[in-house]
């Protein structure tokens, strides 16, 4: 094997150097009998966003082909991940750590990036297992513990059956063996990023990952770190299945305005010019030598391209027929510091808006002496809008008080996609299909019968709108409630809303988290549009297929969006309450006991006589006055006490003695216990 391989490698070396593109075609044909190698690709996509921010999307992909030694011997692929896949028989898994919320309104909701990389805040984990049905839960629990150790996060809280659920069909990779769980409150920081980087062969020492400067990343508005792995079917008998590990990091950053001194009135409309150095504080000084390809892309989305074309048309006034990428590049409204190696234009013009443009830069051409620092300088002010998902989803709580409330999901038609849907609008029976998947923790007791649907603010019969519904009610302290729905809305819908009422449950005192007064999170609902596919199809070309990022873009995945996570305040008890109750009850009991005992051993006649004697003796000033007063109040004649007053020193001595006794007890107690 080795003898065969080494000449072949030399051949590859020569080939890769010059004929990179032919090599793959050649290699894939020839590798029929050969052993495939582990591969690693690194890519970065930059995209200006309409609200003066920049999106940076890092995409690292490692793959291990089916082999007999997966999980034991590895060259580039991380051993830990491979062992995890082998041990828990994971077919597909996705783990994401997110901080901040994706702003669907201004950053778009239709592209492949938001629909597969916008994630709910905190941790989201789902996994599909290749094990018999009864072992899935055990596998899931072990997997959460392993991941928790691997990524320094409290993923192990997903172990409890109250935190995860098994969606039947509404979650996109729907399958019976799927488990889904989220931890909305998990804080994400560097300690999660470092183990994630450790899975890359070059970590952040070389290649594109050098840009991951911690302060700049975590200063951003949105930060989502994702790990997706798919195990590909094993090639033949005895082979362990191959794995494709896809690690993405999506950040939305605000570039520091380079021309801070300029004070135009129109400054607000001018998009900030940025460069890699100004965003990340670093620049790429070469590739990771282990990467098969190392590319940086700049993506201008459909809205921006359409706007630029429009501006171009206006400025030039010379009605040229059609815009090709060439003249777009030569007469640009912005300037790039480096020449792109290739320009891709999106192929399908299904959208009247225009097609997005992708500039490709190969990092291989740059070196330490000549680092790659892409910068983009706008020449004219541009304003555009990103393409939205057909409906904008938001979720909120209704009602007040600590007893009951209601969850509402409101879907609003986005103005932008109106025209897009208008194509089908003529058809009377045009429907817009919306899938809703929502998990509710058990202490939020949802009444499914109270589900109400409003379309265009008119209440509608549920059966008219909801085509399919699957509900698995929550069990107290056992499992969360899951609601899966398929809605069929008319295409011309302006707004739709779903409301469902719930009662707030009571938790046992042990079940409250340490900061119970903050409230309890309801995980984000997932709204997906199965009829709309977020894909960008570029010209069929080998180089497109070769890039994992671009081939990812071409995949037809349904448009998906997450709603906000809700915060429900529950009645939180006073946590010292048990002690208070104990103390009060004990005191009452003690009083009862004491008085009962006193009554039992009381000698009424003796006491009366004693009192009389005492009264006869005692004539203090005060008591004299008191007895006078009481006699007056009773309306009787006052009889002066017969005997002379006795000194009260005896009572005082007793009092003093008691005080001393108590003090002595206290001192003794202190002494004994310290």
């Amino acid at each position: 094997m080795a003898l065969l391989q080494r000449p072949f490698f030399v051949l590859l070396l020569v080939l890769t150097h010059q004929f990179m593109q032919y090599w793959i075609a050649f290699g894939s044909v020839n590798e029929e009998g050969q052993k495939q190698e582990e591969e690693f690709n690194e890519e970065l996509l930059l995209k200006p966003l309409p609200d003066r921010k920049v999106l940076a999307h890092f995409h690292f992909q490692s793959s291990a082909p089916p082999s007999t030694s997966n999980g034991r011997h590895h060259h580039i692929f991380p051993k830990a991940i491979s062992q995890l896949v082998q041990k828990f028989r994971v077919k597909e898994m996705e783990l994401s750590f997110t901080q901040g919320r994706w702003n669907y309104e201004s950053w778009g909701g239709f592209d492949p990036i938001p629909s597969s990389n916008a994630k709910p805040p905190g941790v989201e984990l789902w996994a599909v297992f290749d094990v018999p049905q009864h072992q899935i839960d055990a596998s899931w629990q072990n997997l959460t513990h392993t991941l928790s150790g691997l990524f320094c996060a409290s993923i192990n809280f997903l172990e409890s059956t109250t935190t995860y659920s098994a969606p039947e069909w509404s979650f996109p990779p729907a399958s019976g063996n799927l488990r889904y769980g989220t931890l909305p409150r998990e804080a994400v920081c560097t300690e999660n990023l470092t183990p994630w980087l450790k899975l890359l062969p070059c970590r952040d020492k070389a290649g594109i990952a050098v840009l991951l400067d911690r302060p700049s990343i975590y200063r951003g508005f949105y930060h989502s770190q994702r790990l997706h792995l798919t195990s590909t079917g094993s090639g033949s008998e005895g082979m362990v299945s191959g794995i494709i590990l896809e690690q993405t990091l999506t950040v939305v950053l605000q570039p520091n305005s380079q021309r801070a001194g300029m004070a135009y009135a129109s400054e607000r409309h001018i998009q900030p010019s940025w460069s890699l150095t100004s965003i990340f504080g670093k620049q790429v000084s070469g590739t990771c030598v282990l990467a098969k390809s190392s590319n940086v892309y700049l993506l201008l989305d459909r809205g921006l391209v359409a706007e630029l074309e429009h501006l171009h048309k206006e400025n030039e006034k010379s009605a040229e027929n059609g815009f090709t990428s060439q003249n777009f590049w030569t007469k640009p409204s912005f300037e790039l510091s480096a020449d792109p190696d290739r320009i891709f234009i999106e192929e399908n013009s299904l959208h009247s808006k225009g097609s997005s443009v992708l500039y490709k830069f190969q990092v291989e051409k740059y070196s330490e002496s000549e680092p790659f620092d892409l910068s983009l300088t706008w020449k004219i002010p541009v304003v555009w809008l990103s393409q939205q998902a057909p409906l904008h989803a938001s979720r909120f709580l209704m009602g007040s008080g600590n007893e009951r409330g209601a969850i509402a999901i409101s879907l609003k038609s986005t103005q932008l996609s109106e025209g897009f849907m208008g194509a089908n609008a003529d058809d009377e029976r045009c429907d817009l299909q919306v899938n809703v998947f929502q998990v509710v923790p058990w202490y939020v007791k949802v009444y499914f019968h109270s589900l109400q649907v409003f379309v265009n603010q008119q209440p509608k019969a549920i059966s008219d709108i909801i085509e399919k519904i699957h509900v698995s009610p929550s069990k107290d302290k056992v499992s969360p409630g899951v609601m899966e729905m398929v809605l069929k809305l008319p295409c011309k819908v302006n707004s739709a809303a779903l409301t469902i009422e719930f009662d707030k449950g009571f938790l046992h005192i042990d079940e409250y988290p340490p900061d119970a007064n903050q409230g309890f999170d309801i995980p984000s609902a997932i709204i997906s549009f199965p009829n709309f596919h977020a894909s960008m199809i570029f010209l069929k070309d080998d180089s497109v297929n070769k890039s994992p990022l671009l081939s990812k873009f071409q995949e037809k995945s349904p448009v998906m969006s997450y709603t906000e996570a809700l915060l429900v305040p529950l009645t939180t008890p006073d946590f010292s309450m048990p002690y208070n109750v104990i103390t009060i009850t004990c005191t009452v009991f003690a009083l009862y006991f004491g008085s009962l005992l006193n009554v039992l051993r009381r000698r009424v006649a003796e006491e009366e006589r004693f009192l009389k004697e005492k009264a006869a003796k005692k004539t203090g000033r005060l008591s004299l006055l008191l007895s006078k007063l009481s006699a007056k109040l009773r309306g009787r004649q006052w009889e002066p006490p017969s005997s002379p007053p006795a000194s009260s020193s005896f009572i005082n001595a007793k009092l003093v003695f008691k005080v001393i006794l108590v003090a002595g007890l206290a001192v003794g107690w202190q002494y004994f216990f310290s």
Partner: protein
Amino acid sequence: MPEISDSDSSKLPDNASKVPPQPQSQPDFDPKLMRETKPGLKRLFLTLTVLFSFLLGFPFLWKSVEIYRSPLPFREIDSLLTQLRSDTLLFPLHFHALFIGFDSDPDRIRLSILSEITKVTSQNPKCSNNYTLSVTVDFGPRCLRFPISSPHSISYQCGSITATDFVQNDDVAVDEKLESVFSGKTKEYSVVVVKGESEKAVVGKYRHAWMVVGGGWEMEIAAVKVAEVLVKVFVNGGREEGSIRNEFMPVGADGKIVLSFNLLNADPRDWVYDWDFRKIDDGLLATMIDALGPVANISVESQVLYHTPKASFSYWNQKLESHVFSNKDLPFFVNSNEWHLDTSIAAGGRSKILQFVVYVPSAKECPLLLQLPNGEISKTNGFISPMWGGVIVWNPQGCLKDSENKPTAGHRIPMQDLENMFEVFIGQFRQIFGFKSVNVYAGASGVWNLLPSERGFTVWEVDVLSRQHTCFNLHSCATTLGSLSRLVQSLPRMIIMDEIGKQVKLSLEAAKLAQSNASSGVYESSAASSRKARSLAEDSFFHPSIMSVSYYSFEHCFAVYSPFFLPVSMHIGLAALRELRRYKKEKAKYLAWKAKSNTAS
């Protein structure tokens, strides 16, 4: 007095009950000092009953707030500890000495060898051996045996080994011959002493040694040498006495070892080397893993890591034309920040992971050599760290940086280099187990050649390891259980689950079984049950319920119950005290009156 006294009428006939006593009628009757009726007992009785029932309730309360503690067999743990500490674990061993061409009495030889053995044997504080020796003198067709009925000497066919077998110079062939003659029997260590021309002493790779001695050799000298090879080599594995390393076994509590091989490319920008690890795994390592089967269950993993510089600097040595890393900096060679060797997910939680690292230096430190403390350069260019693993520095051929500035992942470490490296690794692995890798054993009485095994470990070395493994496991189990019992006894309010009690019981049972198996010479099962005992002991010690700090403290108990018991006990106590005092006072009054009335009447 309004006191009710039922015995008034019967006891005091003078003061008729019909006529209540009139204090006024008797001039010297002072109501403060005397009373005419007997003081009543009803209230006193009542309060005392309450007090007693209150006191009686305490044991019940105590019982009800008691926390659950599974009864642990403290006494048995202690007895195991003392047993292992005082009388050491005895492993039975059988030695067989065969003399060919000698003309002496086997009984005399046996006695002299035995006396030599007792001289050489040092007392191991933990585990020792209980040996039996049989001696055979072969005259060709017949032989003399002593002890005559020993099953070990009787199974030897007289005349099956002759002096001519040893004439040839091929030690391996002789070893195989001896194995074929002695095999198929119980485990015994045999030494063959032959009279011949040349002198030679060899220890084979099975359980045999032979010695060719010249004509003029005395029996006594031969006996000394035989005793030494038996004790120092076969029993102690040729290791030095008192070395700390001998006491530790790099085997996990579950009896597993994971060998994690890592190829570290310090700077992949200079060059990237890969290896064909699978070939090594299938070839060299598989046989060694197979040989060590009785001691540990070994699995192998490998990975290649990049951008992993070492943590300390080397200096340029002009004379050697290379970078030299001095011995005193070795602790700083391993860079735990950058070398993310990681533990293995595939391995269970208690497996021992040994890391073996091949370090490929970057171009600017390329021929990197390790210096020994005496100033010489290490031949293996590697070092070990006990209980962690080993490191080898491998310098690429010529240290030439690629002329092309594209170092692709095409380089492979040549197979020859890789094999050499893995031989060093096996040596390091042996060293971690405490064995030397030289093929000569120099004892006090002479030099023995040791035949190396192609399996990495010879049969008698594996025997030594498995005995040591059993011994180590048993001691570790006993100390773990001992600490557990001390911990449990020192925290009286710690909850102890039933599961822990069960684990402790099972662990003790397994330890007993291991002891009995060891003393009857069944090494495999004793190693297995000692492993089980240790693993169960660790399980019970690291049980999650012990780890939690939420045990029910006395302060907590006091805080909950004191609001009730403090006031109530005060009431009851005071009431009882008052009643008692009053009763005494009243009784004294009554007695005073009685005395007075007696004197009066």
